[in-house]
């Protein structure tokens, strides 16, 4: 019904073209033009992405807005796009985040403005491509190409140790994704020359093959999520990246890893997924609990939020691999995971933006450099505390919804898994609120804090938009869950059947 639509192509190419256009803007004189083009381009991208929401058919589990053009006939590769209830939300989330990032960098970035904005816009288009691709090679292409702008963002505009962080980020993710490429080539041979992800869902595979494929995909996505023990690139990358980079990393690229588990691991290797669910749950629980403790020990705000992200993403992977004893995945686990992903997209973006606001003024990320910020920045403190509460998972905020659904799902599978997951509610509260207490509340700690000026209109705007999203999703999550319902059910049915026969 949407066969002749080009909306998905537009969500990819509008930001990329805007980015290329911005790249032509040179020098100080054209900074303003570059910013304007970037803003218009990102807003247009968001509007196009919203068309997806409007035109989306909630009752269908199939790919919608599909496009398919033969691209490379020699390998039967198609430029094939489509979204279902699982991926659609992320295209919109990504387009939304891009607008936020463009506004957030408005006055802060003064060096190589056009390149900075171009990198984010191109990145945004590529990420939309990752979520929309239904051809494995096309997916891989966007997945890898995305590394290039991110590498430059961290390396050019990042902190003092940026080179180390950028290279580590690149190589870590490259290693994982190349193993995934090997898996794709293997599947291409098994399916007699197809790179269609849908064909991979249906091809029968033995448990051994599924296990090998599972680990090939795991290598790629676990690094992206990131899961313990391959998470060590994330704190480095986050700490060194500029604020915009941290926002995109936390809000978007981490989601790609989790999305990959849903799109590749579960449907292509369903039996292996079931067999290895204990392994995945163990890793997820380690991420939730151990990384939660690690976050507690941080003295750097960005690092703390980075570890908090790992811990929260552990929830997501936990939810995805909750199986009952018959090998049926938990609806609540997967839906809760998806909700958690979207919610974490908003909350982590907001947290990093808040840290960015402080960093722009004091140029320190150390918790000990602050204290009593509420006295000089009351408006900022309002938002910061709100987002801290959302990060904790306070009922009424979006952070609560996902975690609560996942814990419900876990409870049905095993009490102790649910118990382990619930520990994060305590740990998360501990590290987030403790940081808030030390930074925001108390007496004015030093002259830097005394000299702080409260957030300006631009900063209020972006934080307010995010606050509205966090509260809206927390109070009325229905619009988010109803789009994914059919697709999740179809996925669970597919996984339950398995493909050994």
């Amino acid at each position, binding site marked *: 019904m949407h066969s002749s639509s080009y909306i998905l192509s537009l969500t990819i190419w509008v930001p990329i073209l805007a980015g290329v256009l911005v790249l032509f803007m*040179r020098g100080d004189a054209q900074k303003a033009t570059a910013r304007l083009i970037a803003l218009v381009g990102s807003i247009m991208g968001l509007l196009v992405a919203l068309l997806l929401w409007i035109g989306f058919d909630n009752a269908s589990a199939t790919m919608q807005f599909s496009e398919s053009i033969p*691209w*490379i*006939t*020699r*390998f039967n590769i198609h430029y094939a796009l489509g979204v279902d209830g699982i991926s659609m939300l992320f295209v919109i989330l990504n387009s939304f985040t891009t607008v936020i990032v463009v506004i957030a960098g408005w006055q802060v970035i003064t060096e*190589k403005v056009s*390149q900075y904005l171009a990198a984010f816009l191109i990145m945004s288009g590529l990420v939309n491509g990752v979520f929309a691709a239904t051809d494995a*090679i096309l997916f*891989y*292409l966007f997945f*890898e*190409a995305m*590394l*290039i702008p991110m*590498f*430059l963002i961290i*390396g*050019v505009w990042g902190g003092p140790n*940026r*080179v180390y962080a*950028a*290279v580590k980020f*690149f*190589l870590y993710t*490259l*290693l994982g994704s*190349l*193993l995934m*490429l*090997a898996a794709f*080539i*293997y599947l*291409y*041979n098994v399916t007699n020359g197809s790179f269609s992800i849908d064909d991979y869902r249906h091809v029968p595979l033995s448990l051994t093959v599924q296990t090998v494929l599972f680990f090939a995909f795991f290598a790629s996505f676990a690094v992206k999520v990131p899961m313990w023990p391959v998470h060590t690139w994330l704190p480095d990358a986050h700490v060194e990246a500029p604020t915009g980079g941290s926002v995109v990393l936390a809000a978007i690229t981490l989601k790609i890893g989790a999305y990959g588990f849903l799109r590749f691991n579960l449907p292509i290797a369903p039996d292996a997924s079931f067999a290895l669910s204990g392994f995945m749950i163990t890793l997820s629980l380690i991420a939730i609990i151990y990384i939660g403790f690690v976050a507690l020990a941080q003295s750097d705000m960005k690092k703390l939020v980075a570890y908090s992200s790992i811990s929260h993403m552990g929830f997501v992977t936990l939810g995805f691999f909750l199986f009952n004893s018959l090998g049926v995945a938990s609806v609540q686990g997967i839906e809760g995971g998806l909700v958690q992903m979207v919610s974490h997209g908003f909350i982590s973006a907001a947290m990093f933006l808040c840290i960015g606001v402080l960093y722009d003024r004091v140029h320190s990320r150390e918790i000990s450099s602050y204290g009593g910020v509420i006295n000089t920045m009351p408006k900022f403190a309002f938002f910061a505390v709100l987002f801290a509460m959302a990060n904790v998972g306070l009922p009424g905020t979006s952070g609560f919804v996902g975690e609560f659904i996942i814990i419900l799902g876990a409870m049905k599978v095993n009490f102790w898994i649910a118990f382990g997951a619930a520990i994060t509610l305590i740990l998360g509260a501990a590290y987030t609120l403790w940081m808030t207490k030390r930074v925001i509340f108390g007496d004015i700690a030093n002259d830097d804090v005394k000299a702080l000026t409260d957030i300006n209109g631009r900063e209020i705007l972006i934080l307010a938009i995010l606050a509205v999203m966090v509260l809206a999703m927390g109070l009325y999550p229905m619009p988010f869950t109803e789009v994914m319902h059919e697709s999740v059910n179809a996925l669970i049915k597919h996984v339950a059947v398995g493909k050994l026969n």
Partner: protein
Amino acid sequence: MNPAQINVSSFNISLAIPEIFLLTALLAIMVAHLFWTPQRQEARLLFASVATLLATVVLVVLKAMPVPSGSVIETVVITPIQYGFSNMFVVDQMATLLKIALLIAVAVVIIYSRSYLATRKLFSGEFICLILFATLGMMVMVSANHFVTLYLGLELLALSSYALVALNRDSARSTEAAMKYFILGALASGLLLYGISMVYGATGSLDVSKVAAIVSGSRANDPLLTFGLVFIVAGLAFKLGAVPFHMWVPDVYDGAPTAITLFIASAPKIAAFGFVIRILAHALAGATEDWQGMLIILAVLSMAIGNIVAISQTSMKRMLAYSTISHMGFLLLGILAGTNNGYASAMFYIVTYTLTTLAAFGIMLLLSRDGFEADKIDDFKGLNQRSPFHALLMLFVMFSMAGIPVFVGFWAKLSVLEAALNAGLPWLVVFSVLMSVIGAFYYLRVVKVMYFDKPTDTAPLVAPFEMRAVLAVNAFAVLALGLVPGALMTACLNAIQRSF
């Protein structure tokens, strides 16, 4: 039938018209340039040589045309196999495509080299004549259907290359590099010739088609043939620069003037590919199992040593030398698959590798100026601040070499990996994948110094217009072919399928 008549008809001299034209034109330039005044010589040499090469491309295309009515596009797609010079010379689709690629590559080399060599007073008639002789040798190599013709082409290329490396005769480093190149190259030629003589002993023929028929028939397991094969593979590995026969590559790349390195690193690789296909895939197709094992060892070693040693290099030229070695390992992956798909993938690999290498050295030449070589990785520091456009071009090239999509290098790697997996070598694929992660590290380092570091050298970049224009087209072709690689892939596949 009258024997003389057979000779005349099977001679089919018109097949070699492009080669004959190139030789004639090159002799004309050789004589004419003596009469050109020094101030005009440079521009005229450039024009004459590039025009000759492009005219040869046109002749190659015309020659490949099956019927007078066919359009040019169709021609490249369907070339009938035509034999000449008593089966010693063949024009088929592979030869046509490789010739077009290498002629264009040489033309680009000359355009890039001009200002570099001119400031060093090396852009002379000798340079042009040697490079055109080498080109002639390469054309003969890819069109040879006889071991003697193959060897003839190879030596014409090799002898010209030795002289080119020593072009800057006052430089001790260049002379040393040329000596090394000559001695090791001669050794390799000797090995190759020795191997060929054993093949002759085993089969009684030097004609590629006849050897192929005999080898795939009864004589496949002849120990003499296998013995000869070892020498042939060693000789070919030498010419390609595959480990453990790679020792000359870094020294020659480093010692030769950058413009000559550019030449050695580009077009001759295309010719070497044609050479390998003629010998291994045509003549010795019956012994595929024997050479496959040897190539696996060469490929594994080349990818490992090339990538790992490249990490520790500080010289851009040496880094690219080791990078070339690793690329040859990937190329061998396609060849050792032993299937048409594999050969086609390897062909795609070599053509796109050449394109990428041309751009890499092109930017190096652009950065260098009188008395300054720009051959250290540190010389690229802060290029993004000096010239964002050229930094972007170099970024394309480096990511393409690393095999990151959307650049063409990704498709090249994908094709050869697919061929190797199809040949039932999954462990080799996983190994190559790991090696390319290591490879990504040193390509990334170049991007890192260009974008993350502050420039230490702020001299403006000066280069003739034609060089800047060709360089931009070249680097954007790396991106464009990455976006639409289909046509070239199909052309390579057709070329291989229609040449067997």
